[in-house]
């Protein structure tokens, strides 16, 4: 597979996102899938491969009327759909199928009792035996464990951590579909309720309902579709922890799996950091973009907090990041990977709410499993 051999030819969110009462996770996935198929000018009969994330393949396939000859249900947490895109690209290149629908839906807010959000708590599993009892039910207790040590080692301040949320709110203000658009200050963030010290509510992602889907095929066919194709130039992935928490990560402040993933994606795409016009770094919590910027090599160790505080990633900055407002302001269902990719794709197509001019190269980086997996994707407007 060469850079740009695979293209995204359909991409859409569910019709409504945010608070969507009376629609189940499955319903959100089906709605997003139908929207993505319409975006591509296709029907279910045109699809011969599918990925369904947390759902049984048969549930989604059957309800859409798809009879796939290839499927993938890789589940590693929030970035699972990014891994699935990578796998779909490989499957299409291998000739296993031609056109893949990648589906996602999660009613993280309204009908959680019907939602299977990737069960880390399987009885007898490592996380159930050794992790979940301590940080029970709260990603903020697991995901944020490295933050205090990072603050001590690098001098990251609470104000800088809060500013990550402030910078992203500036993008959300430009984005009508974002759930939280009102202005936000560092003082607001630092006065919001404590959740898991030193993490406060406004440093945490939202809890939302949303779905979305992608249609992926060979770039040789990409010009046949109604919307501008978005080419997959490179991809990477990395997994490290054997537990749900960062207890399984060898170096929690500088995880190797971030470098592994980023290096693979950048090398495959043949790009350097200076080529990147637009960046998404999955923000389940305010520190995630800091760790991502450093792990991916955009800045040096200990530099990302100041980099964001200096305005480089906000509107008008030279590295626009999380331009939908991110999980902290746009929407976050429980697994944000699909929404993260969809903003990258809108930016490359030129149809984002807070559109950056001339996005030729976009990098999208997502996390999974509270800090045990990640994936990096490089999207391009042109086939090299």
């Amino acid at each position, binding site marked *: 597979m060469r850079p740009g051999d695979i293209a995204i030819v359909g991409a859409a969110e569910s019709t409504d996102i945010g608070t969507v009462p009376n629609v189940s996770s499955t319903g959100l996935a089906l709605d997003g899938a139908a929207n993505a198929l319409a975006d591509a000018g296709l029907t279910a009969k045109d699809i011969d491969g599918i990925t369904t994330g947390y759902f049984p393949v048969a549930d989604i396939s059957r309800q859409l009327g798809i009879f796939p000859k290839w499927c993938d249900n890789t589940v590693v947490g929030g970035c699972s759909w990014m891994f699935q895109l990578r796998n779909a690209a490989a499957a299409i290149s291998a000739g296993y199928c031609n056109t893949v629908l990648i589906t996602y839906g999660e009613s993280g807010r309204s009908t959680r009792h019907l939602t299977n959000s990737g069960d880390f*708590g399987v009885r*007898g599993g490592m996380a159930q*035996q050794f992790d979940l009892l*301590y940080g029970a039910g709260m990603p*903020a*207790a697991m995901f944020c464990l490295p933050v*205090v040590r990072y603050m001590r080692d690098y001098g990251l301040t609470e104000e800088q951590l809060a500013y990550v949320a402030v910078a992203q709110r500036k993008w959300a203000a430009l984005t009508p579909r974002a759930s939280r658009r009102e202005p936000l200050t560092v003082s607001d963030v630092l006065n919001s*309720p404590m959740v898991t010290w030193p993490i406060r509510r406004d440093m945490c992602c939202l809890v939302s309902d949303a779905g979305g889907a992608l249609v992926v095929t060979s770039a040789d066919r990409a010009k046949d579709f109604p919307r501008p194709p978005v080419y997959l130039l490179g991809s990477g992935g990395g997994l490290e922890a054997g537990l749900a928490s960062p207890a399984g990560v060898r170096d*929690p402040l500088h995880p190797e799996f971030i470098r592994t993933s980023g290096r693979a994606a950048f090398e495959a795409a043949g790009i350097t950091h200076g080529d990147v016009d637009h960046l998404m770094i999955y923000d389940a919590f305010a520190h995630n973009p800091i760790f991502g910027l450093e792990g991916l090599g955009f800045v040096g160790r200990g530099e990302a907090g100041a980099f964001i505080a200096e305005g480089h990633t906000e509107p008008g900055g030279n590295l626009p990041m999380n331009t939908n407002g991110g999980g902290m302001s746009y929407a976050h269902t429980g697994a944000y990977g699909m929404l993260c990719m969809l903003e990258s794709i809108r930016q490359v197509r030129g149809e984002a709410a807070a559109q950056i001019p001339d996005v030729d190269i976009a990098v999208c980086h997502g996390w999974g499993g509270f800090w045990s997996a990640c994936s990096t994707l490089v999207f391009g407007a042109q086939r090299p």
Partner: protein
Amino acid sequence: MAHPLVPVPTPETQPYWDGVAAGELRLPRCQDCATAYFPPSPICPNCTSRAIEWFTASGDASLYSYVLHQRPAKLWNADGPMSVALIALAEGPMVLSTVIGCPQTPESLVLDMPLRATFTPFEEIKVLAFVPAEARS
């Protein structure tokens, strides 16, 4: 059936839980490469050897990093915030646990402070916890 948060041992992890019940922190160690590791596995994660032995760890540890969970699970019967901590065992592995026997405040919980393993009731069993090394729970 027990509450879903109560750990369920497997045959491969049973020696660890037998140790907990006996008030000892037992870890697996590879007889070929001498690596002590966690979580338990019948295969050494360093060299893929099957020659595994269990030993009683020193219980010495230090505080790597943590959060103060403002709403811990009811099963802990906590009357306020509870530390959730990454703890570096003297033998090398990192574990997730909690530090008890001291105020649950940033002032009391200082990174790299020496800790000692202890075991604390959790529903019908005991689970691993840590106390400041100078204290005794």
